[in-house]
């Protein structure tokens, strides 16, 4: 649905993108992740037909962004990272303005606006001045605006940065809903946790290069083979360690810090093992037989944060 090949972007003498290639399948929620200054916005602006790449090509919804920008715009909803906003008009007027500008027919305009307002739950803000809205409310209004022409593809640049946790969670639910409606969503972020749950696909960019990309499951399997589980028990670490080490399929046992409010006798370990859930059942049974007071068994999900730490080097972008 979104594809780019060998995008190179130079500003002055400085190369910001070094051949970025991506493939985002239809209906996926794609997380485009990278530290500040990695080149996310630069890539996104090319996809949104707002700037021409120095080299390379890109397609959105099967249409070439360089050759047919007007057609791409009809199929694309783009929300910039720090969008400007008009003064002295209300949220309702703002949406009417953009609906009219986007050429939504007069007859269906009211209905179209009502639909996006309902979807983004901003009905109560209709009469408020746009400038007076909070950051989270503004983001929802901007999102409503990008949905007015019913785009197939949504490209959202850092939609959740600067939001408080509650607004962030609400926005995430909204994206999930849009994903269910069959829209292809391309989100960028430099904050990992805000994306982990809703992305089906991820691409990680660092200093203008894609370091890894694929489905979440794919990346997990590729980068962190094996399974991990966290065990908590009452008693010393050594007791646990001794029992677990007797199994050959256990790769590593590492102590994990407990929370400050937990009793001192609680011990927690992370166990890295190979195999399926039967193996885990074996481990639990062995611990019980050894009369270790097991109080919790939690799967440790490989999250985006760990993948990110694995693939990026943390190097600072070099200035010319």
């Amino acid at each position, binding site marked *: 649905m979104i594809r780019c090949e060998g995008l190179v972007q130079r500003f*002055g003498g400085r190369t910001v993108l070094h051949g970025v290639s991506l493939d985002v399948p239809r209906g996926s929620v794609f997380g485009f992740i990278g530290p500040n200054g990695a080149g996310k916005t630069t890539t996104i602006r090319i996809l949104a037909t707002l700037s021409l790449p120095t080299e390379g090509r890109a397609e959105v919804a099967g249409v070439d962004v360089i050759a047919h920008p007007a057609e791409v715009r009809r199929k694309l909803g783009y929300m910039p990272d720090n969008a400007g906003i008009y003064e002295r008009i209300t949220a309702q007027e703002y949406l009417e303005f953009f609906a009219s*500008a986007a050429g939504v027919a007069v007859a269906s305009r009211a209905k179209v606006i009502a639909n996006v307002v309902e979807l983004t739950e901003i009905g109560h803000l209709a009469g408020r001045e746009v400038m007076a809205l909070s950051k989270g409310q503004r983001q929802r209004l901007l999102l409503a605006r990008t949905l007015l022409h019913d785009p197939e593809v949504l490209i959202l640049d850092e939609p959740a940065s600067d939001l408080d946790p509650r607004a962030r969670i609400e926005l995430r639910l909204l994206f999930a809903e849009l994903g269910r409606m069959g829209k292809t969503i391309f989100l960028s972020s430099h904050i990992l946790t805000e994306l982990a749950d809703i992305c089906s696909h991820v691409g990680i960019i660092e200093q203008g290069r894609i370091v890894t990309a694929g489905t979440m499951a794919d990346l997990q399997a590729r980068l962190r083979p094996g399974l991990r589980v966290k065990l908590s028990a009452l008693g010393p670490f050594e007791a646990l360690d001794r029992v677990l080490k007797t199994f050959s399929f256990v790769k590593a046992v590492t102590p994990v810090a407990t929370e400050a409010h937990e009793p001192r006798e609680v011990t927690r370990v992370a166990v890295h093992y190979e195999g399926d859930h039967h193996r885990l059942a074996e481990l639990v049974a062995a611990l019980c037989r050894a009369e270790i007071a097991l109080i919790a068994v939690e799967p440790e999900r490989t999250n985006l944060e760990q993948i990110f730490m694995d693939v990026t080097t943390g190097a600072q972008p070099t200035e010319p």
Partner: protein
Amino acid sequence: MSPLSRLAQPFRDPNPILRKELLGVLRTPLYLRALTASVLVLSSIVVAVAASSSDRYDHAQTGQAVFLLFFGGAALSMIVTGSVLGASAVSQEREARTLEALTLTGMPPWRLLLGKCLSVFAATALVPVAAVPILSMVGLFGGVNLGQIVIATGYTLTWGLFAVVFGAGVSAHSAHVRYAVFGALLLAFVGTFFGAALLTSLGHDLHTRYGLGLEGPFFFVDAYSAIPWGPEYRFYLITLPGVSLGLLLWGAFALGLAGLLEPGQDRTLPLKRWLLGAVAAGLGALTHGHAVFASTPRTRGVVAFLALAALAVVCLQLGFLWVTAPLATNPRMAREHAQRWLGALTPPTQRASFVWLLGVYALGAAVVVSVTARGDHLALASAWGLGWLATHLGLVGALANRKAQPIGSARAIMLGVILFTSALVWLIAALLRIDDVDRVLSIASLSPIWLLVAVERGLRAPSDPAWSAVIASAAGVYGLLGALSLGLYARNARARLVDGSSPRG
């Protein structure tokens, strides 16, 4: 869509920009306060003048003075506010990062620009319209009739509209409001100066022949009732204003459109269309005016008309240069623009367009020679040709050079050349004690228009010794400008050969 429903479309679905901007203006407390203040200032000046002049002049004269003062002030205030507000129309959206969202809606650039222009015009026109009650004072004094007031109102509003559209045109090419405002005010100042001068010289001619009541740029107000219906009425009062106003407005709009086109589109397209229209309309107007020229050879009006046409061509060339400067610092865009426009205006790469431009100049010279029925044709044509060639070479040199160098230094070079040559001429004039300002201006302004006026005057008094000094300094200045421009161009051409790559980026 049927023609009828197409006509009804703007009413069923009004331009969203117009609607939004007007809402914004009406909700700005500052705007209403400024409106009230300017109406108060305008009316107190008018009242003061009326009170002070009523004991020295008769009632009709006082009425006329109040009338002129009112419309002069209204025109001036519309020009200033129109250019300032027009200049912020697009650049403000660019600065506030709202323009991109608008372009992404797929709204055609002409609609965007039209909405901006109309809303700014409405906001500025409210000042004179709100102040119209002051005019009732004219009714007390007499001396001016209702028809004249209607014409003067339309006339003032037209000046305001120009200022707005030119301002918006500048604005579409600027990334920052302050540069746009500066550029638009400069343009408004130069345009008002030249426009008023041209109108005055045109009016001067008609004034003496028909005994018009009003002189200066406001002569039109009288001309419509004083000049009898005939070829002159049709040419001077219908064709000439219609064609020149239409072309100027269209040109300004085209300039704005060019600034709003996509990075990948040919930004010169609107100006090329305009050029076609301008040539067609100009030729049409000339044909229409032929009867007038034939019956009254060598009037100042003809010179003024030709000067207007020449000014339009200069504006066009400057516009071409301007739109070639890409706004974004994107190397691909810069490269494409450089290729397209170096090609279009420079001799070696696209000979055809160069020859074509020279042809336009030759045509202009031929027209000058043919309509000025007596005098030294060779001197006129060579003065004209010299001026144009130098201007053309100057533009080519500047364009070629700015593609190879940072834009700032190219601008500084051109500005330096202009200031230096202008200063030189004034110096020569001072040394030779030439006190005819027209003549010094003719050279110092580096404008073929003034040169033409000077040549015409020189031909009337061929024995005047100062005249040869003027011709000599003109030749020197234009020669210098031409040589410097060729030098710049050649230098850049060599740089590109050595470099082996496209300039800049």
